[in-house]
């Protein structure tokens, strides 16, 4: 039997044992410290001195963006940046004293330098951009300075900042750790990887004081590739200036191969300001502007297409055989459906019309009737086939797909059933229908090239390697042949004929009757429902933001189509009176430059 005293003895012994073990362990630590800090200290001091390899980034040059007529739209400029490694205070003060002679620090700058040093960052930026003079002085005296490096960085510039603002986008002011320019919007963002290239580096050895000793290793950066666009800078500028007469609008010019000749959104903004650093006030001003200059209006905003959509309705009707070209429908200026009267834009009514007349006068009643016969399911199918309500796949970020409604969509979105009158409104491109300008122009392209796979593209492919290019061309040729997906020939012919009539005797006769022959379709899409008393009121008497959007989508010349032009003027009023004249002038310019 154990006694309490015995037990206490055991516990005391154990306590002392544990204390002794701890003491031994502490001695082990102290002994190790002794070995490290006193016995082998010399070795570790040497290692510590050697242990200073600085890796400095070498920034690649960002690729240029070039227009089809050879104008350089975006390019990079050299910029010299002065950085200083962390170094002992004496060296630091000496450096600042010497640099002061060349750079003339202000009191604030100097204070800032000392403040940054105290943060003990591996390196600090002394000057973001050296002038030519300063660069010469500093680089001549670099041997007197310790731990100072001059880094090459780049700044991005745009030669036509306003005209190309939405298309090219802009780069960030190099704020990331390696000072690499990165694309923020537009093509700069879409082709960022290609334009950016790969970063290189220089490995420098620095000595105990943090000063440069020698360059150990070097890896050159890979500069970014150029991007060549299909855009014609002259046309782009011309279109931008034309749109400048109106407040807000967009325009898209395509050729028959799907190359985009001009893509403009007005108003633009100065992308140089963005890439070189914009002040907060200016940025706020851009953001709060009533006309939203930052908005890309050709692919990232969607509108009800209005009467332009009647092309789709007509095409669907002809394909499905709901009407024949000869069938006539009576327009009395309005149709009654679901306890509501739906008016034609022409209050008096058009009388009896066939499909040619209906398209050329843009009769609403005719298309109400046709859409009702078609039903939303078929209308949806043909609209999607012609590329509406889906992305065109152009090389731009943030493309919006728009919307073609159908019964399922409405049930999910609004949780109510589809009504017949909604089919009718959809038939004239109003109601839920939303498309982007690019989709409209691509739809025209599909009809006039008789190829459902027609899609717009912004970039000339493989401009450098010729052999490769030839192969590509062959392949592409094959690919194109394979991917040729024809439309209904008869229906297209009817529509082409009708669209010619639009510009000769129809809604666009005043502006688009040209010797080379334009065919197209006007559209005035309502932005709100019209009240009973307002039908037929002059658009100029309505408040600006309630006016109709003016649209026009056309092709010229008639015999052998070369260009497609689509114009939208936001709240511009009538398509025939506002949008069509712009298209006419663009066609004039296009065909004249082409002839030359």
């Amino acid at each position, binding site marked *: *039997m*154990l006694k*309490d005293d015995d*037990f*206490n003895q*055991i*516990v005391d012994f*154990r*306590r002392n044992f*544990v*204390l002794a073990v*701890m*003491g031994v*362990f*502490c001695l*082990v*630590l*102290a002994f*190790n*410290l*002794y070995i*490290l*800090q*006193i016995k*082998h*200290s010399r*070795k*570790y*001091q040497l*290692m*510590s001195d050697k*242990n*200073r390899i600085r890796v400095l980034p070498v920034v690649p040059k960002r690729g240029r963006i070039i227009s089809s007529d050879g104008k350089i739209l975006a390019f990079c400029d050299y910029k010299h940046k002065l950085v200083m490694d*962390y170094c*002992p*205070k004496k060296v630091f003060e000496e450096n600042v004293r010497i640099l002061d002679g060349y750079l003339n620090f202000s009191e604030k700058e100097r204070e800032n330098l000392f403040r940054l040093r*105290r*943060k*003990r960052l*591996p390196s600090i930026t002394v000057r973001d951009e050296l002038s030519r003079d300063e660069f010469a002085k500093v680089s001549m005296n670099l041997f007197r300075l310790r731990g100072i490096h001059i880094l090459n960085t780049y700044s991005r510039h745009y030669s036509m900042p306003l005209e190309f603002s939405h298309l090219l986008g802009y780069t960030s002011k190099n704020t990331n750790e390696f000072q690499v320019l990165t694309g923020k919007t537009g093509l700069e963002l879409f082709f960022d990887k290609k334009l950016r290239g790969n970063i290189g580096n220089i490995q420098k050895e620095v000595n*105990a004081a*943090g000063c440069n000793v020698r360059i150990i290793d070097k890896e050159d950066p890979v500069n970014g590739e150029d991007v060549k666009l299909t855009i014609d800078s002259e046309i782009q500028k011309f279109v931008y200036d034309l749109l400048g007469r109106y407040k807000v609008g967009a325009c898209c010019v395509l050729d028959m191969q799907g190359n985009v000749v001009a893509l403009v959104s007005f108003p633009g903004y100065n992308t140089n300001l963005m890439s070189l650093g914009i002040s907060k006030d200016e940025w706020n001003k851009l953001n709060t502007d009533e006309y939203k200059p930052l908005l890309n209006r050709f692919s990232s905003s969607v509108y009800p297409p209005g009467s332009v959509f009647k092309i789709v309705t007509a095409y669907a009707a002809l394909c499905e055989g709901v009407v024949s070209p000869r069938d006539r429908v009576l327009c009395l200026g309005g149709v009654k459906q679901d306890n509501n009267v739906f008016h034609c834009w022409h209050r008096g009514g058009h009388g009896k019309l066939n499909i040619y007349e209906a398209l050329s006068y843009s009769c609403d009643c005719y298309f109400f009737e046709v859409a009702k016969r078609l039903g939303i399911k078929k209308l949806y199918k043909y609209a999607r086939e012609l590329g509406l309500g889906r992305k065109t796949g152009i090389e731009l970020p943030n493309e919006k797909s728009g919307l073609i409604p159908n019964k399922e969509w409405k049930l999910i979105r609004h949780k109510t059933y589809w009504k017949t009158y909604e089919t009718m409104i959809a038939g004239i491109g109003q109601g839920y229908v939303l498309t982007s300008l690019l989709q409209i122009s691509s739809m025209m392209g599909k009809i006039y090239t008789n190829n459902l796979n027609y899609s717009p593209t912004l970039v000339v492919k493989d401009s450098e390697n010729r052999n490769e290019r030839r192969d590509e061309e062959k392949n592409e040729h094959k690919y194109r042949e394979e991917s040729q997906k024809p439309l209904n020939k008869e229906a297209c012919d009817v529509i082409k004929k009708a669209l010619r009539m639009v510009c000769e005797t129809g809604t666009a006769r005043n502006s688009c009757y040209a010797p080379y022959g334009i065919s197209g379709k006007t559209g005035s899409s309502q932005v709100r429902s019209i009240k009973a008393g307002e039908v037929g009121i002059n658009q100029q008497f309505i408040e600006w933001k309630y006016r109709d959007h003016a649209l026009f989508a056309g092709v010229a010349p008639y015999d052998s189509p070369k260009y497609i032009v689509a114009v939208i003027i936001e709240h511009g009023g009538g398509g025939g009176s506002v949008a069509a004249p712009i298209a006419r002038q663009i066609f004039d310019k296009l065909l004249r430059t082409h002839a030359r």
Partner: protein
Amino acid sequence: MQDRVFFKEIKIFLILLSAVILTSILGQIIAFGGFEAQVRRHIIKIIFGFTILFAVSQINVRFWKSFAHIIYAFCFFSLILVNLLGSTRLGAQRWIDLYFFSFQPSEFMKLSLILSLSSYYSDLSSYELREAKSHLIPFLMTVVPTFIILKQPDLGTAMLLLGVGVGMIFLAGFPTKKFVWSVIGFLGVCPIGWHFLHDYQKNRILNFIDPNRDPFGTGYHILQSRIAIGSGHIFGKGLFQGTQSSLNFLPEKHTDFIFTTISEELGFVGAVFIILLFAGLIYFLFWIGNESKSRFSRYLSFGLGLMLFLHVFINIGMVLGILPVVGVPLPFLSYGGSSLITFMISSGLVISMSSKARR
């Protein structure tokens, strides 16, 4: 007469504690290269810690004795909550977010284990203590949370918990022969435990055995840490003159590697001073334990002493390269709230004990 002795004890403890706290602030100033915002935040945490210390010191030790098991149960369940639910629902988290600070159950598990074991042992007679079977419950109370924490994975805290638990079982009087056999048995079972470790933990242990195995991985940190400490020499490179830490060769220079940062700039003298400071604190804890009349206080202060010692030894051993890198902070000195609060609570308990336990 007796009162004067208490005050003397508290005075010694407070002097030691404030020396540690001052070293801590100095260490953070060295790590951040001046009186930066982070240092200020650290000081705010210390002040917050002192309010907790004061609050705990005002509570009678008997309170902790009676509530020890409840606290243990609470910590244990929140540990399970974080680990079993945490891995699926909250994402791999070791902590529960409590608006003001994040509550890390594994951190408080150590403290609650010490409390709970002290409470358990203080109720047993010396006969029972000499019997192996009465140590079964403390053993389970130690091993089960250790396994949970090992699965987290947090090798450092698991080692600590096991060390504290086994140490306390040993101090309580577990039969000597059986203890020796159990330790030998445990070492034999270790290779099986190897399979429970995560890859990076295995790597750390392998790197510890052979530092040249991966000079740019975890071995790199240890090498850099050794270079930093070694280049400090006797008096160090001087305040703010350390190149290793300032040129960012050191990882975690303000948390786990704070000892490296300090000993680079203050040298052997500074490093030994810190070790002596902690040794003083640990010895004080054992002394207080020996002096106290209540058995609960005795076990409690032994446990706290063990915990403090294991923290210091594992951390410093780790930065010196004699133990694998397991991520154990240096008490009071490392930047970070959870660990600081644990040790502030412990200090509060010590003050409470030294003033009330003997009455």
